[in-house]
């Protein structure tokens, strides 16, 4: 299988047959088999998230993606991107789909960027992936909120709960990224070229974490209002059904005295039946108009 290699002289991506140790490579986990040093670094990194040795460092960063779930619609999915950085090379290891997106969106126009700046670009991509996903989740949350206007069941509410949980996951993943970057910065000598780039990435991580955390907290606190909206929908239906029940009972109640086995007033009047029907339905109609004016029928 080809592994995309960035040829900085030609300023273009070329399919490489093998990982050769120098330059920028995009690899999936299968492609590192047969390179014991790289495999060992990645294995250690899986346990510790960060592994530094001399000028080499390996970071395992969380990246947020979107995916479609049969039950809950658009949801967030967390995956990991492993970066192996040496003075001569930058190896980006992750699942195939993630690498393709990365290559298209972020690494398309590289020119002759130094490896340190490339590392920063990838770090920022990992950080911004959380913000991008959070933005989509918030849009979806707002759509679901509007759908709640007429919802009777719990489908929308359950989806909102999933989205809130996903937003929480994004905050946690961003914090994890922050911890990794802080540790990386501590392990990097202050005079190293990568130091200011890592420092800028860490500051950006803090800013994005603050923003996503703010969005998460604010949306979480209004979840109870959604419960109120759903309950109100059910109440409204019951209200309208009750007013119909009262309306149907009214003619019966008003006509009832004329069912009595007594001497009835106007019983010899030829049009009494019509008169009684007009009377009971007239009273019911007046009540219906009054009830409508007071919003009893409003759904």
């Amino acid at each position, binding site marked *: 299988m080809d592994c995309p290699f960035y040829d900085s002289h030609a300023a273009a991506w070329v399919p490489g047959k093998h990982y050769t140790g120098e330059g920028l490579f995009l690899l999936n986990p299968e492609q590192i088999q047969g390179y014991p040093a790289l495999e060992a670094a990645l294995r250690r990194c899986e346990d510790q998230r960060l592994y530094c040795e001399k000028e080499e460092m390996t970071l395992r960063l969380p990246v947020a993606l979107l995916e479609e779930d049969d039950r809950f619609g658009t949801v967030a999915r967390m995956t990991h991107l492993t970066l192996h950085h040496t003075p001569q090379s930058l190896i980006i290891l992750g699942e195939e789909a993630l690498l393709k997106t990365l290559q298209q969106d972020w690494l398309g126009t590289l020119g002759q960027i130094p490896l340190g700046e490339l590392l920063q670009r990838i770090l920022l991509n990992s950080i911004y992936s959380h913000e991008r996903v959070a933005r989509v989740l918030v849009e979806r949350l707002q759509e679901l909120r509007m759908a709640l206007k007429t919802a009777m069941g719990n489908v929308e509410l359950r989806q909102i709960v999933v989205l809130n949980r996903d937003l929480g996951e994004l905050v946690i993943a961003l914090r994890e990224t922050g911890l990794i970057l802080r540790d990386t910065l501590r392990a990097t000598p202050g005079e190293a070229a990568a130091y200011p780039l890592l420092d*800028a990435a860490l500051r950006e991580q803090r800013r994005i974490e603050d923003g996503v955390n703010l969005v998460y907290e*604010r949306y979480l606190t209004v979840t109870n209002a959604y419960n109120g909206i759903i309950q109100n929908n059910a109440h409204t239906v019951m209200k309208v059904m009750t007013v119909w029940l009262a309306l149907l009972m009214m003619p019966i109640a008003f006509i009832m005295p004329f069912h*009595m086995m007594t*001497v009835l007033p106007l019983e010899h009047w030829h049009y009494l039946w019509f008169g009684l029907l007009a009377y009971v339905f007239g009273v019911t109609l007046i009540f219906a108009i009054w009830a409508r004016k007071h919003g009893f029928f409003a759904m």
Partner: protein
Amino acid sequence: MMRIIRDCLLSGNANRRSWMALVNPSALELTQAAMTLDIPESFLRKRLEGEASRPIIKQERLISLQFQVPIPEDGRIGQFLLVPLSVYFVPGYFVTLAEQEIPFLSTLIDPQKPRKRWELVLRIIAEVTRLYLPTARAVAREMAMVERDLRQAQRHDVVYRGLDIHDRLLALDLGLLQLEYVVSEIGYFLPTEDKDLLEIHDDTRIELSQVRDQVDSDQETINELLESYAYVVHNNVNHLFKFMAALIILVTIPLFIPGAAAMNVPLGPLPHWRYGFAAVTGGLIVVEILTAWIFYRKGWLRLE
């Protein structure tokens, strides 16, 4: 639109710089601007496209800042647009880039009284901060209107209006957060020997933090109130239920009192008694009035 005004501000070495204002520029204007400034066009375009990027970028030949300016919508109190304003320092130029005209820029950038570049940026940020405050107050004031309608509300429209206020306050809060970040980052660029500039920076930071506290507190208030809004709406609907149930009880009474005199069994003297109808109906009316009075006293027949 692109306009260049010469000698509007001073660089770090007190050299005069020109102001290039790009307002909703066309593709051609962007190309021209990039050529004049000798920077990649993508640098300007990306900022306009609103892609996720660092609000403050320092490169060899330029420094770029970006923050959101709240612009109130005409005639719609509490409604606003957050317009991204990008500022660039390029050799020879101070560039502002926005999708619409930012009203106070022309006042702040005065060729008669050119300011130092960082002082100008801090003054712009202070002005933006001052814009956030009345915008947030106008949004928060809508809560009073929602509360006024809440008394009669039977539907959750008021809750949705509350949620809309919540979203707008959150947008302002996020804008302020970005601004706060920019101000804190600017601190690294300021010359430490310029005490006046450091003082302006401190003032801006404090003012910004106060405005953010204000927006935060408004937002916390609306968050707490939203749940109560939903309960008030419930309660209004429950009042209707209570009223309906009382009404149904009242209309059920005639079913059994005249019903007793409507049975198909011998009813004694009642069928032939001249005042039978008046007596039973009169009794029914007395029972109805009595029941209605009790219900009214208990508040079950009141809609308020």
